[in-house]
């Protein structure tokens, strides 16, 4: 492979790692700082992607409408797609939070899992909604006409980096403030936090919704990168599990760890692809499973031997005044 090809490959790798970093940052708000156990990230991934897709594409007309069903298409700019994805995910998180956030932590886990599976099934079965299993294609990309399509990834990488930085900074700002301190306190001891006058349910809800909005953003970024989405992308493996491994590997309760984890685990994931390419032909079809098996074992090893991850949690939350 010539050098240009390698760079192009690295750029595509960085784009995906950057998208996953956004998810990890969202999960870190919920799990790392508040202790909320969301195992339905794929649901927010899916909703974010579809929401942005339908906001930014036009409703199919003419002959095309015979082949593609879509409940609405607003044909709005990319940035509104991102915002819409975030808002819709926030609303859904709010609805899940109502019955579960006052109960034990496992209930939120089961409920988010249920939401993820349910939305995937709905998008798969309801053709009128978003074209069923075939999904949506031809999603617009921002600043498309600016460069040669084969160099477009550079632009998208810049967009991803900008959004990732904005998300990172806004989370950092909120976490470093009294808001983040309350979340960490709730994670440590809910009763004591309540005795200091904090409304636990309210703060947990904010954390769940904020985290879900960030995940929605991640979903939208993914959709416009691949330009085509279908329900089978948003499986528990790609949509939830690998993100958990990333956050645990990087260090939950640490936003730098969340980003680092995303890049490291995505690197390992791609690395295992090269490894499985060496397998005999008959096993190749099942290579992704072998790779996921390794990722699963990685999670167990982290949980047992290094639960704090690579970076570990930061000692101080309140750093605003320094």
């Amino acid at each position, binding site marked *: 492979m010539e050098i240009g090809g390698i760079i192009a490959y690295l750029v595509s790798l960085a784009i995906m790692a950057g998208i996953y970093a956004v998810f990890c940052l969202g999960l870190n708000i919920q799990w790392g700082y508040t202790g909320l156990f969301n195992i339905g990230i794929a649901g927010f991934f899916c909703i974010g992607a579809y929401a942005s897709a339908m906001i930014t594409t036009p409703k199919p007309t003419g002959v095309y409408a015979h082949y593609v069903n879509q409940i609405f298409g607003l044909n709005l700019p990319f940035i509104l797609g991102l915002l819409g994805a975030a808002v819709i995910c926030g609303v859904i998180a709010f609805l899940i939070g109502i019955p579960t956030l006052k109960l034990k932590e496992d209930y939120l886990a089961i409920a988010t899992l*249920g939401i993820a*599976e349910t939305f995937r099934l709905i998008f798969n079965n309801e053709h009128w909604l978003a074209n069923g299993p075939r999904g949506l294609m031809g999603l617009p990309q921002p600043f498309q006409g600016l460069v040669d399509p084969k160099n477009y990834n550079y632009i998208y990488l810049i967009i991803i980096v900008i959004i990732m930085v904005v998300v990172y900074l806004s989370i950092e700002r909120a976490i470093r403030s009294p808001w983040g301190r309350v979340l960490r306190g709730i994670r440590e001891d809910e009763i004591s936090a309540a005795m200091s006058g904090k409304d636990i349910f309210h703060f947990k809800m904010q954390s769940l919704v904020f985290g879900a909005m960030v995940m929605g953003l991640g979903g939208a970024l993914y959709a416009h990168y691949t330009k085509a989405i279908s329900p089978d992308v948003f499986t528990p493996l790609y949509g939830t599990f690998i993100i958990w491994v990333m956050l645990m590997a990087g260090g939950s309760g640490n936003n730098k760890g969340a980003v680092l984890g995303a890049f490291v685990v995505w690197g390992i994931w791609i690395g295992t692809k090269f490894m499985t390419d060496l397998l005999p032909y008959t096993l190749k079809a099942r290579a992704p499973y072998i790779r996921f098996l390794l990722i699963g074992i990685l*999670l167990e090893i982290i949980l047992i031997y290094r639960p704090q991850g690579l970076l570990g949690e930061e000692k101080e939350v309140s750093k605003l005044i320094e």
Partner: protein
Amino acid sequence: MVELVIYGIVLGSIISLGAIGLTLVYGIIRFANFAHGDFLSAGAYVALFMVTGLLAWIGIPDTTFGSLSFGWRMAIAFPVSMAVVAGVAILLDQILYRRLRAKGSGPVILAMSSLGAAFIIRMIILILWGADSLFYRPGLMRPAIELPLGAKIRPDQVLILFMVVVLVSSLHLFLKRTKMGKAMRATADNKELALVTGIDTERIIMWTWGIGGALAAAAGILYGIDVQLHPYMGWNFLIPLFAATILGTIGNMYGALIGGLTIGVAQQVSTAFLMPTYKLPVAFVIMILILLIRPEGIFGKE
């Protein structure tokens, strides 16, 4: 409609088997085992390996019992698979959960670890058998028995109900009559007191995993006989299992039985109005309703 209710009871009894195991583990080890669904898959595939591989190779004849769709091979594979999955469950506890418990990790970390275990089991199945649906005996159709009111039931399904009744009653007798069963209930009631009484609670935990795993394996095989095998079958059972467990109050075996039947019937009856693929969301919606109305379940105290 009568037919749907009957099929619902068949499905529900399978869910019950899984939910009973889940609720026992929840009651004694006190965490949500997200790998429980994949124990079902593991059981079904171990039996598949026995029926189509090992036992065929040994030379056990491929005959069937009467109008049932299986014969000696399955009769041998069934208990063996239960034992194997019981062993897998105990092994997972020894390798993963026991270490985490010893480190003082909270229930959420244990649950996360079980989620990892779920994926590991599923990936092993996918690596060995691929992603397609499989059958114990492809292409074999047996005539259904005509029941009053125009309902039909297949002989296999009658046997499934029979097997569930046998397994649940044996578990009931085990817990009520044997020393180990009573010690299990005692540990679920009050672990500290059990220890003070001289009960080796780590051993009880092993028994609990063993029983939970064996029942899950049985549920998986029975589902495989009734419908088909699929690597994601257990994962798709996970939400119904949790719904049944929560509906019947966490830790309550009889609650899980009733919860399982309720969920199963509701899922089957829903197919009269909804696409069959929406069975899972139906269980999910029921679960959310319980959480809103009565989160402690039907047998729970306020």
